């Protein structure tokens, strides 16, 4: 299967701190790939390097065959990104914000507005499309966050802790939608989280980061069998304690 994301000894250091330590992995197209690790494990830094938000110190990475440093703009044109924490412009109506993000992808105003309206309706926010984002709840804001990540019709979607702060029902809808994106539209999803239940419910392949290093990568069931783990929690604890 063609690789959507390839990391080859990708490294990021900040002075003496090694945030990401020679990470190599491969994510096949059309997968929902679980990218796990505790806070500070290096997941966010890895995603930021893939999206050109920070430069790697060493190694290389490619998204859909394009180098993330040399061809960063093209990579970003093919990707959607929902950061772990972000603010939205409080004074701006939801639809205007999506149209603005659409303009960043070079969409005309009419096209960006049409896509934005479609996404807001998909996420049951059609009725509040003209309302300022400052009045949105956490769940509504997260839906707008996902909508902005999808407005460029990405082939690769980077989701960084996307379900944190969502109630159980919101989380269920969110995960169902992510699964649908991969299955029905062939979108590759790099799903970064430390909520192990989320990974178990939608990912077949996973990678686990610990203190900047990749300590496991492969099929979820195969890893469980290899480590004789009954649950995702057992697998994660076994791997992390083994790496400590």
């Amino acid at each position, binding site marked *: 299967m063609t690789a959507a994301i390839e990391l080859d000894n990708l490294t990021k250091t900040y002075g003496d701190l090694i945030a990401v330590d020679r990470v190599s992995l491969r994510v096949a197209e059309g997968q929902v790939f679980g990218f796990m690790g505790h806070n500070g494990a290096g997941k966010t830094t890895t995603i930021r390097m893939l999206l050109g938000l920070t430069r790697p110190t060493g190694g290389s990475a490619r998204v859909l065959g394009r180098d993330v440093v040399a061809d960063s703009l093209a990579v*970003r044109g093919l990707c959607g990104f929902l950061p772990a924490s972000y603010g939205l412009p409080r*004074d701006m109506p939801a639809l205007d914000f999506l149209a*603005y*993000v659409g303009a*960043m*992808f070079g969409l005309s105003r009419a096209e960006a507005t049409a896509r934005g309206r479609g996404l807001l309706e998909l996420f049951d926010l059609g009725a509040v499309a003209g309302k300022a984002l400052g009045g949105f709840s956490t769940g509504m804001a997260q839906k707008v966050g996902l909508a902005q990540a999808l407005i460029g019709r990405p082939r690769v979607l980077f989701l960084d802790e996307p379900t944190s702060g969502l109630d159980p029902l919101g989380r269920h809808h969110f995960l169902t939608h992510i699964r649908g994106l991969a299955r029905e539209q062939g979108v590759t999803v790099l799903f970064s989280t430390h909520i192990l239940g989320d990974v178990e419910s939608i990912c077949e392949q996973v990678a686990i980061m610990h203190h900047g290093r990749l300590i496991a990568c492969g099929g979820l069931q195969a890893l469980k069998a290899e480590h004789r783990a009954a649950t995702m929690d057992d697998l994660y604890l076994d791997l992390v304690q083994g790496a400590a």
Partner: protein
Amino acid sequence: MSAAMVGHEVRALLRARRTRLAIGIVLYAVVGAPFLLAKPPPHVAAAATEWFHASDPAFALFLFIWTDLALNKLAAVLGVVLAGGIVREEQSRGLLPLLWAKPITRARYFLVKLAAAAIVFSMLLGGAALIGLVLFPWQIAGFRPVPFLIVSGVHLFGALFAVVLSATVAILVPRRLTAMLISLMLLMLLVGSAFIGFYNPAWADYAAINPFYHAVWLLGHIDGLTVAHVLRPIAILLGVHTVFIAIGVAAVRRIEP
């Protein structure tokens, strides 16, 4: 640069509370200018007569009050209000990683924000001139609309420096409030030293690098304005703006979102 993005930024800026405050300041300046003319400070009236040698000293004095006492101070404040938080505002809200992960260069993003601030600034100052064009013929004896518009237009080119400088300082200085204070101080210094070439003609050439000097310099030629009188300051001002924009573009590339 994306026209659609600039349009979105302009609409967002027009909706912002600080822009409503700016509109209030503009109206205050327009309404206040004739009152200043009714009883100008004696040293200002004497200096304007001595410097400009105009056939109608009262009209020259009015234009001086309009450009310096009203528009220059207004421009300094508006520039900081509209552009003093460029990029840093989005950074403090945590919006930059989301926006800079899109297919747009940081330089282009900065230029879009700067262009939007410059457009809104021009709308405000241009609006002030247009309101003045309606009101002043009733309030100012001997009001001449053409010189008024020319001086206001050249002043706008100079005043845009307030936007350019504020935006560039916002990129160079990470703390937003500190950056805004630095910009305001620098702009007030420039506004205050705009007449150095009049006080001492030997320094007139050096004063030309001060963007706030040119509209007032034009008043010295108010009775015989030519195209060259208008193009000279505009060419200088475009050069100054370009240098500062280039500094901002170079600096924005180094910001970590």
